């Protein structure tokens, strides 16, 4: 749309030059005078009582400055679902009991990393190993080891969503399918591991630099855990080397660095090793999925029933949200008139499962889209047609749950159908699988219990016309600083280079819930837009008086030109108006405040994006090995603010979501993750990456800034399902558990061969 002068243009990220020259400073690069280095001792047992911790030998090591254990903390428990205190269940530094291999028990600060690490070997911890339980199906059994006191059967949370009359609807169905699936775990593998530099001054105030997706959460959780005022804690977030859902809860690096620094009044830096990152940070939630789907002969879906049991790991974390969202998104993106979901999250003695890009929806999309293809097969209906018949449309209300305004699902389906037709007849053993998705643009429910607006921003115009944006939003690489700068520039009528953004610094930026749930473009974007509009209003009021326009609405600013809307050639320079406004206001700076909290938008999210993906695979039926040939995505995310950013989100999502379907997994043995290194944890690399094509669909979301909505996480939802469906199309076998490995494919092929032989006899 050409009416915009900034939005929709292919621009360099505002921090791009720093990043390509190596001058971008991450927490990993922060060095401070007098700084110490910390390391964390972790439990080697999945479940054990801590009988005694003797730190004397470690303290005697030359270069060691402090050793802390749970006894040095206030013993508080943290959790991010702060509205529900019983869900705040993680001590971070355990005092009495460890609940997974990797639970932190002590931390050391020393003059360098090697010394700190050496000291870890000198801490003597006496454990009393307890019986442990690793599979949620075992953990809910009577007599299973109890992981948290008072939590019987280890049931951490249960969630229930229902509308219509499911039982009655099933009776009316011509065809019903019941299927079981298992979704695996996945590691975030941010390139920058979790790290923090915490610095307590002698004034008792804490300053922290940390790789994070939400400085505000970290500040608030620090305040909870250390019994401090929020305002005495300043959390900086400059560059973050990836987050993907792993970096918005208070982690062991942040907490231990603070505890050590508090004791010593010296800056302490802790960088988790890659192995710690794999074993002792949060991960994607593995799920057992049970689905029942009923349809009429013509393909009208009447009812769906979903049961999920998730492996929670040791603590709650964001698991409650994942449990809820997987249930909600199991109905997406279709109009089920009757729907029922029962989900249970079960504690286990494994690393905590929590948020990861897609947040429960990659799981529900994989299982749902796999089952839908099976249903299409049963009914003899083309899979795209079946999706079209039941797909969501604009202004659809998910009964009692959510209201969907913009929705371009059908256009996406058309485009993908066209794409598949264009491929013509495929070579043997090739198959194209389809998968559709929808996702939210930020969450509505205030589980964090914040008294603030969900997003807030400040915009200030300086005397030279340059604009400063202050936002609590965090750029973890997804490019939100660029997107928000573009929104500000567009709204204010200046160029992108006129805008400077300060983000994620709780010392100067208004609170924002941060980068999770694909919320920043819509929510932070709205806040920035409103703040910029408030500035613009001040300029226009002044210009109107000066130019003698009838009313302020007659004026607009575009590309640094303040002009009459009807006669754009009549105007004055933006820079002149800025100067005169500031002078005219007696030197008071031009400032605008903006905030956004969704209201009356149902229970989930203010807006939803949609898309359809087609994956082509080539299978070697003798080995089961398959190659990802091409992944084509038709998607809509409202107005595209930053096209280069969306391309990156999309292709990056395919790397991650393709990995979820193709190769990524965290096999365990008695609670021990067997592949805690990048050498053993398989990730898609450049040679494995499929070709990616994007088919952009235009939509406009009334709730979003300039019509924009999410484009970050939704794209991680469809790929695993598309791969599963493609393998089926290619060689006729269905894999029910992720990842879809060659070994599983070959096994299924052999099984199929056996069955065919049997049938022939």
């Amino acid at each position, binding site marked *: 749309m050409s009416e915009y002068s900034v939005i929709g243009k292919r621009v360099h990220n505002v921090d791009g030059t720093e990043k390509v020259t190596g001058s971008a400073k991450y927490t990993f690069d922060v060095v401070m005078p007098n700084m110490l280095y910390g390391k964390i001792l972790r439990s080697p047992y999945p479940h054990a009582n801590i009988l005694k911790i003797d730190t004397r030998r470690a303290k005697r090591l030359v270069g060691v400055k402090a050793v802390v254990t749970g006894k040095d903390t206030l013993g508080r428990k943290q959790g991010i679902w702060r509205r529900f205190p019983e869900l705040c269940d993680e001590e971070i530094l355990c005092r009495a009991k460890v609940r997974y291999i990797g639970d932190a028990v002590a931390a050391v600060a020393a003059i360098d990393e090697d010394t700190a690490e050496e000291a870890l070997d000198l801490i003597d911890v006496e454990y009393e190993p307890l019986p442990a339980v690793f599979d949620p199906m075992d953990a809910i059994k009577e007599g299973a080891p109890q992981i948290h006191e008072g939590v019987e059967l280890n049931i951490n949370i249960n969630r229930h969503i229902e509308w219509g009359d499911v039982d009655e609807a099933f009776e009316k169905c011509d065809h019903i399918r019941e299927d079981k699936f298992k979704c695996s775990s996945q590691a975030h593998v941010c390139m920058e591991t979790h790290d923090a530099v915490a610095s307590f001054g002698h004034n008792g105030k804490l300053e922290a630099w940390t790789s994070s997706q939400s400085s505000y959460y970290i500040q608030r959780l620090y305040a909870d855990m250390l019994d401090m005022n929020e305002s005495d804690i300043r959390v900086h977030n400059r560059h973050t080397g990836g987050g993907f859902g792993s970096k918005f809860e208070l982690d062991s690096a942040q907490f231990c660095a603070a505890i050590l620094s508090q004791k010593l009044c010296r800056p302490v830096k802790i960088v988790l090793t890659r192995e710690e990152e794999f074993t002792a940070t949060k991960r994607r939630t593995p799920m057992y999925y*049970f689905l029942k789907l009923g349809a009429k002969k013509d393909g009208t879906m009447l009812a769906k029933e979903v049961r999920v*049991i998730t492996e929670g790991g040791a603590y709650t974390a964001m698991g409650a949200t994942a449990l809820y969202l997987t249930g909600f998104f199991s109905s997406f993106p279709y109009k089920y008139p009757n729907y029922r979901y029962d989900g249970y999250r079960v504690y286990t003695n494994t690393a905590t499962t929590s948020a990861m890009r897609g947040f429960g929806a990659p799981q529900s999309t994989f299982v749902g889209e796999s089952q839908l293809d099976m249903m299409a097969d049963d009914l003899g209906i083309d899979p795209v047609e079946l999706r079209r018949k039941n797909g969501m449309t604009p202004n659809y209300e998910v009964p009692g749950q959510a209201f969907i305004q913009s929705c371009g699902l059908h256009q996406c389906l058309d485009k993908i159908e066209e794409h598949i037709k264009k491929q013509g007849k495929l070579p043997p053993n090739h198959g194209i699988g389809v998968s559709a998705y929808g996702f939210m643009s930020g969450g509505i429910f205030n589980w964090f219990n914040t008294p603030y607006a969900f997003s807030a921003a400040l915009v200030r115009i300086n005397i030279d016309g340059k604009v400063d944006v202050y936002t609590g939003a965090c750029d973890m690489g997804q490019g939100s600083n660029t997107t928000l700068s573009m929104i500000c520039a567009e709204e204010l009528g200046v160029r992108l280079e006129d805008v400077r953004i300060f983000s994620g610094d709780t010392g100067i930026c208004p609170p924002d819930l941060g980068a999770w749930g694909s919320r920043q473009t819509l929510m932070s974007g709205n806040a920035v837009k409103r703040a910029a509009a408030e500035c613009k209003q001040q300029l226009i009021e002044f210009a109107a008086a000066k130019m003698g326009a009838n009313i302020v609405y007659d004026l607009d600013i575009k590309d640094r030109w303040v002009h009459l809307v009807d006669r754009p050639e009549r105007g004055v320079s933006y820079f002149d108006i800025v100067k005169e406004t500031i002078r005219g206001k007696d030197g008071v700076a031009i400032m605008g405040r903006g905030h956004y909290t969704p209201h009356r938008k149902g229970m989930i999210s203010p807006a939803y994006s949609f898309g359809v993906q087609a994956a082509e695979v080539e299978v070697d039926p003798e080995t089961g090995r398959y190659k990802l040939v091409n992944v084509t995505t038709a998607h809509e995310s409202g107005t595209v603010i930053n096209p280069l950013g969306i391309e990156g989100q999309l292709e990056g999502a395919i790397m991650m979501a393709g990995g979820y379907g193709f190769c990524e997994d965290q096999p365990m043995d008695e609670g021990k993750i067997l592949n805690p290194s990048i050498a053993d944890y398989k990730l898609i690399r450049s040679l494995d990456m499929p070709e990616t094509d994007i088919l952009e669909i235009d939509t406009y979301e009334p709730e979003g800034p300039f019509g924009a909505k999410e484009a970050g996480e939704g794209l991680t939802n469809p790929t695993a399902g598309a791969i599963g469906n493609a393998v089926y199309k290619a060689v006729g076998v269905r894999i029910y558990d992720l990842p879809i490995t060659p070994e599983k494919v070959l096994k299924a092929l052999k099984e199929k061969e056996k069955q065919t032989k049997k049938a022939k006899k």
Partner: protein
Amino acid sequence: MSYHCPVCNKVSNKSALDLARHMIGRGDKVHRDWITSKGFKYSELLALQFKSFGGEGFKALAEVLEKETKVKD
């Protein structure tokens, strides 16, 4: 016709099966105790829910509820 939960008095106007799902779904101690007092094992009912659809255990509990919790409106 409606069904009232004997523990928390939640009202279901659908069926006893629906109420059975509510009671198992809540899963807190009070609900579990009531279920246990009727000779069921909560964890087994739960496990059944995940083993098969239309779990027979659910239906068994619903039978009890049908008798005990039906209220004529």
